[in-house]
């Protein structure tokens, strides 16, 4: 079974040289710690920046320089700033090769739910709906099951959708699955996880 950092490290294998990538909040943010040698990626922050750098040194925080999670960050030599309309123009326009996002639920047809639990606290979708609709490839990173042991990889989502048929690949603590015609396809199992265990934890149809 993979921990948070191992999931991030596995997700980092999805990156290709020269890609522009958007990383969501949570585990996806950790992906930037595991970018493979020789692979150069440029991180987009949807609040208006390409070329997001690491957190600043203590004392060098700049209130005018934050990421989409409102965290203080730094710039890089290739950084460009732009406004929110331009930022989502590039997202909606398919210029971002990949988004790596967290999720509450994913369905076997690629439906994604990650923004709202009706009746509970409603924070909003932020840029997630634009990202899943616009970017070239959507990779979800999340725990395979809920705290109560229920599968989050479902036949169909129960929560309000962020996007319909938008997910390409799911990376969980138990393994990696691709959304393909007819259901999900197991790509690999996490260290120490058997295929049987992966199948048992998955409500969605697995076709291989």
């Amino acid at each position, binding site marked *: 079974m993979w921990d948070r950092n191992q999931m991030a490290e596995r997700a980092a294998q999805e990156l290709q040289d020269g890609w522009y990538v958007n990383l969501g909040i949570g585990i996806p943010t950790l992906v930037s710690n595991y970018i493979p040698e020789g692979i150069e990626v440029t991180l987009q*922050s*949807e*609040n*208006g*920046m390409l070329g997001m750098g*690491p*957190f*600043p*040194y*203590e*004392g*060098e*925080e*700049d*209130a*005018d*320089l*934050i*990421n989409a*999670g*409102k*965290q*203080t*960050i730094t*710039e890089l030599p290739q950084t460009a*700033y*732009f*406004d*929110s*309309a331009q*930022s*989502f*123009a590039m*997202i*909606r326009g398919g210029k971002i090769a990949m988004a790596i996002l967290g999720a509450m639920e994913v369905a076997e047809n690629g*439906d994604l739910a990650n923004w709202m639990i009706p009746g509970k*606290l*409603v*924070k*909003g*979708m*932020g*840029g*997630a*709906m*634009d990202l899943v*609709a*616009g970017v070239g490839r959507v990779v979800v990173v999340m725990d395979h099951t809920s705290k109560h042991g229920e599968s989050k990889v479902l036949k169909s989502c129960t929560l*309000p*959708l*962020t*996007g*319909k*048929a938008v997910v390409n690949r799911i990376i969980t603590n138990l393994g990696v699955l691709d959304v393909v015609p007819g259901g999900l396809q197991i790509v690999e199992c996490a260290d120490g996880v058997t295929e049987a265990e992966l199948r048992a934890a998955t409500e969605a149809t697995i076709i291989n």
Partner: protein
Amino acid sequence: MKKVYPDAKSALDGQLFDGMLIASGGFGLCGIPELLIAAIRDAGTKDLTVASNNAGVDGAGLGQLLATRQVKKMISSYVGENAEFMRQYLSGELELEFNPQGTLAERMRAGGAGIPGFYTKTGVGTVIADGKEVKNFDGQDYILERGLVADLSIVKAWKADPSGNLVFRKTARNFNPPAATCGRVCVAEVEEIVPLGSLNPDMIHVPGIYVHRLIQGSHEKRIENRTTRKREEA
């Protein structure tokens, strides 16, 4: 035509009325027109609809107008980080229209650009599409979103010249340019008004045509999530 006003109160004079629609720049607490928001709070204008990506935090940003219950409705993409907002929303005192962040930014840009409607993939097949026209282009479905025109825009910039040309700094730019364009009147709060001719004309983020009134002023720039690394990590 003098655009420069001595303070936020005078810059908003005659521009506020109950039930109006205000578009505000800012992302979280970054690049928000804090002094203009405070002046609207002091003016007591009621039943506001505010289009802004976020709703501030308790006591800062648009949180100031929520505390005084001057806001009837928010049009936003993300409203976490504000307990008073949640209380009012859950009790039914406050309306909330969620817009995907890119849709909200584009609605402002379109409103300012004379575009009453545009089609987007964002939100197709979700609750966001409810009640909206769906049109198929080249085999793919898109939904119709409306341009947003505000009675007033309030924005925060880094520098301005007296003609209203605005320049922003780093990610404090965010929603400010699209918000500036979508207001019938736009009032800008800037850190520094520089002499005419001292801004590079190739490097103006918002041309002065969009900006009707200007104030210079400063406020504390708050940081929501202070994240750092230690020097040893370098």
